[in-house]
């Protein structure tokens, strides 16, 4: 029972990261029907940028620790959003009306540019996050240990998910985003500036992804230039599991994949997690080809 509960906690943590990153894929796909392969690398870049901000701010020694951490999250989110907008502008917008394959190639190109950029700036070796960014407190409840980082990750992710859900479902801009995802031309007829919607989508995805990137750094501590592929792939699988293009689907898919990998790691072996992940993906796609919460595509026609 202890192992089980402990692995559930671990699953929620890794699931938080997957869900945060998956949302970036799913929102861009929802509106543009494009898989933004550069998203995972943006998550990796965020971890590096965040570490840089942290080192600089600590070096300055003016701000108290909690304010440093908050500033790191905010500054990183701003940089990530700026990079995402640049990618959208340079790699995707010129290809908006081009064949699908061109955009895919462009997406892969953007991904490799960011990944190699990270390697050129920070080197090919593992970079280590300091261990004292957040307090080293931990609590033990019913035999499960939960650290401050873990608790922060779970809570912050939940707050972000709830905020996003409220934004998408209950605001005018959120409705405009959903309308643009259904039919861009008709959205334009409503007076919606679809270019602006796409920019908002990229900003929101980048901000959530940057939080995910910082969590990876703070929790696992070792980061490398190709981290985007590893987490990006899993988050992408999470998005597909939930139904790509579907926002609650990505949240569910993220947590589900997190719990699943944690339980496999706990009861089988962590080296099997990846193989089982693919088995899960295949099984779900056989039973429900559109993912757990995905809508039937045929309905759109």
């Amino acid at each position, binding site marked *: 029972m202890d192992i089980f509960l402990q692995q559930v906690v671990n699953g929620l943590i890794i699931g938080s990261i997957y869900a945060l990153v998956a949302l970036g894929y799913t929102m861009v796909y929802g509106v543009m029907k494009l898989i933004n392969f550069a998203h995972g690398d943006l998550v990796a870049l965020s971890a590096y940028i965040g570490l840089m901000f942290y080192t600089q701010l600590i070096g300055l020694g003016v701000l108290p620790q909690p304010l440093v951490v908050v500033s790191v999250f905010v500054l990183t989110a701003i940089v990530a959003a700026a990079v995402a907008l640049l990618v959208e502008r340079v790699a995707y917008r010129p290809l908006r009306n081009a064949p699908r394959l061109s955009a895919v190639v462009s997406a892969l190109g953007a991904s490799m540019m960011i990944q190699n950029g990270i390697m050129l700036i920070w080197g090919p070796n593992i970079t280590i996050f300091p261990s004292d960014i957040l307090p080293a407190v931990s609590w033990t409840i019913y035999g499960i240990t939960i650290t401050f980082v873990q608790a922060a990750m779970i809570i912050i992710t939940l707050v972000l998910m709830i905020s996003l859900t409220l934004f998408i479902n209950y605001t*005018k801009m959120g*409705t*405009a985003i*959903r*309308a643009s995802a*259904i*039919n861009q*031309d*008709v959205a*334009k*007829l*409503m*007076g*919606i*500036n*679809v270019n602006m919607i796409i920019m908002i989508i990229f900003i929101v995805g980048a901000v959530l992804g940057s939080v995910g990137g910082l969590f990876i750094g703070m929790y696992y501590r070792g980061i490398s230039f190709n981290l985007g592929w590893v987490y990006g792939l899993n988050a992408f699988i999470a998005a597909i599991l939930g139904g790509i293009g579907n926002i609650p689907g990505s949240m569910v898919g993220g947590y589900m994949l997190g719990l699943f990998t944690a339980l496999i790691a706990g009861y089988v072996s962590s080296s099997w997690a990846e193989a089982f992940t693919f088995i899960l993906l295949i099984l779900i796609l056989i039973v429900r080809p559109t993912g757990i919460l995905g*809508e039937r595509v045929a*309905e*759109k026609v």
Partner: protein
Amino acid sequence: MAEKLLEVKDLFVNYGSIQAIKGIDFEVNKGEIVSILGANGAGKSTTLRTISGLIKPKAGQILYKDVDLAKMPAHKIVREGVSHSPEGRQVFGTLTVEENIRIGAFVKPSVDKDTLDWIYNLFPRLLERRKQLAGTLSGGEQQMLAISRALMAKPQLLLLDEPSLGIAPILVKMIFTAIKEISKTGVTVLLVEQNAKAALKLADRGYVLDVGKVTIAGSATDLLNDPKVQEAYLGKKK
């Protein structure tokens, strides 16, 4: 002399190398209902899509209150007071009826209560079904929704593309009565229809479009009595 609201001048529209509109001129005066008739593929929808900015013309002008819409992006044209209810309804199927109506008022700072009441009064069925997903409405109800959505932006010029398409006669009647009501409130209507008889009964004037060109123009009564129109679009034999 009537005041012109819309004046289309020497308009050419291409899809790649296909010429869909080959130099048409027409105008719509303030307060009128003008109908564009024509067979499948004549270019009726293309004309409306060009006015609302979804397609950019190859040449020509679309003067609306002295602004040239041909140079304006679609989302700004709505703000000028031109709303377009597209062919095939195109409601947002996974949004509720109410969300569809509210998104129609996107260009307005807030949803106008009076307009909302007026729309629900015009189409009481929508009020009953406002919490329902738009995709689950019947075709006729979706058409009512598409028109309502377009009205929420409080247009001065309403573009309607085949509101009778695929709809049971009883609902068509209801929708055409509603168009008359809408027109009475001062909204100018440009109505594209294949149902020529119903459209001409409602309209003040009409144009017949044939493979990208205006072939016949005149008052609705003239068109109804025109032997060529009768033969081609009203199903009467000579």
